[in-house]
């Protein structure tokens, strides 16, 4: 087993033309790129540029990015919750409990279609979705929101469905035995059990969405990514550093905030 894994790893290493010497040889070029051309001002990454009006512009763009991620998350939750219920085998057993060939086929069919939809949403990268939506609604944050939302809906669906399938079936059995219907069983026996998992996953996806949203600007889909891409293309690398610092600080703050929220709910 270990030998096979090692063989796969080795083959992959060779096929992708990985080489340590290339990195060592090329280290000089990287140093040059980071240091920049001494004849052109601000072409090096250090020191970061510090022009208050520019920083204000970047922060506003960062806030726009956060807003994009937030709305995208909201839409993706709306889609992912019902979709994840349909993509969980145990939940389908509550919805269609009888054991006839017809209901078995129906359950299988619903499960497959829900998983398939989620898979398609998820496997297509945000950038690709953004290209589609930019062509539909034009440049700007809305294309980015739709792209993020649809991709995140797919990811959340998979994550939430895994949470749903991991619940203790006991309470579900008990409440079904009292004659409670599908939605009541979901609210009383499923939601309380999946809540901590749900909160963690949603917070994690918010952080991922902020990171993704910050490069969606590359294809004209709004947010701080627009400036990032613009500065990279025009070799104004000191500004690139400033923008990266703003993104890192934003993600760090979200991480701290998530920890606080998570503690409250779990």
């Amino acid at each position: 087993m270990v030998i096979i894994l090692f063989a796969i790893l080795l083959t992959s290493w060779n096929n992708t033309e990985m080489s340590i010497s290339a990195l060592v040889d090329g280290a000089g070029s990287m140093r040059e790129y980071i240091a920049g051309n001494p004849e052109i001002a601000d072409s090096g990454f250090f020191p970061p540029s510090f022009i208050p009006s520019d920083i204000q512009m970047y922060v506003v763009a960062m806030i726009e990015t956060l807003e994009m991620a937030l709305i995208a998350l909201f839409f993706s939750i709306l889609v992912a919750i019902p979709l994840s219920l349909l993509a969980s085998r145990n939940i389908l057993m509550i919805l269609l409990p009888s054991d006839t060939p017809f209901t078995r086929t129906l359950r299988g069919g619903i499960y497959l279609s829900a998983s398939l939809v989620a898979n398609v949403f998820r496997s297509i990268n945000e950038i690709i979705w953004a290209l589609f939506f930019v062509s539909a609604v034009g440049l700007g944050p809305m294309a980015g929101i739709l792209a993020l939302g649809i991709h995140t809906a797919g990811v959340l669906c998979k994550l939430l469905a895994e949470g749903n399938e991991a619940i203790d079936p006991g309470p579900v059995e008990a409440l079904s035995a009292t004659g409670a219907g599908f939605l009541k069983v979901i609210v009383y026996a499923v939601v309380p059990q999946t809540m901590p998992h749900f909160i963690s996953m949603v917070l994690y996806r918010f952080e991922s969405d902020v990171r993704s949203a910050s490069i969606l600007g590359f294809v004209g889909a709004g947010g701080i990514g627009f400036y990032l891409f613009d500065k990279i293309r025009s070799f104004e690398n000191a500004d690139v550093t400033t923008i990266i610092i703003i993104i890192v600080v934003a993600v760090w703050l979200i991480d701290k905030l998530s920890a606080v929220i998570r503690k409250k709910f779990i």
Partner: protein
Amino acid sequence: MIELNNVSLGYNKKPVLNNLDLHISKGEFVGIIGLSGAGKSTLLMSLIGNIQILSGRYNVIGYQLGTISKKHLKELRTRIGFIFQGYNLVDRLNVLHNIMSGMLGQMSLSRALIKWYGRQELAKGYKYMQTVDISECARQRCDELSGGQRQRVAIARALAQEPDILLADEPVAALDPKSAAQVMDILQTINRQYGVTIIANLHHLDFARKYCSRILGIADGDIIFDGLPEELAQRDLDRIYKIKNTETCDEDMEEIDISHLMDAARIRPKRLKKVLKHEQESVKV
């Protein structure tokens, strides 16, 4: 109240219990004893319509199981309480919510969704909390309670249904002797005070003898004893628990259908057979 005429029950058209004739009237406290796998749980689950009825007439509080519609089955279930060995409470909800969830069958969907209870419902909830002596823990989360306390919450949840029949599947098997006696005492009170018919699977013969008004002994899918606790003689027990008859036990072990176990554990069949074989060998040694 419960009337079985020549009923056979089973899974996937394979009978587990054969040709049962059984009549249980209101107010009885019936204890079912027998080996694991004899069909005790199957009999209990069949009462709430969870088991396929292969033949015969099966009447519970006026409902004909087997031909029952989905709507009527829900109605029937609201009138039957069920207590499980593993309590089956929602651990992250507090005691009150768990108890109120017993009334879900009667509650309107919109109120259930926001967990909003009426004054009368709450009064009922507190009354049953007092019956099982758990009111001081009303706002505590269920994962903070001991096993005995949890089973009492589960009983209060079943009572909140205001059931005609209370089914208990090994209600005290996981409890220490003191908590177990307390739970059995509560069941007896419910049986006598509220006149609720109780049917319980019991591992402890002493409990069955002490608390039940009638005992059913099940072995190999047949009811082989049906009578008062005092009438239960040693030779009945020998037949129920198959004492001095180890060969048949071995045969049973091989015949157990393990397919659902494999699904549950998602273990490859080959590997599971290996594990089972290993276990059987270690038992023989």
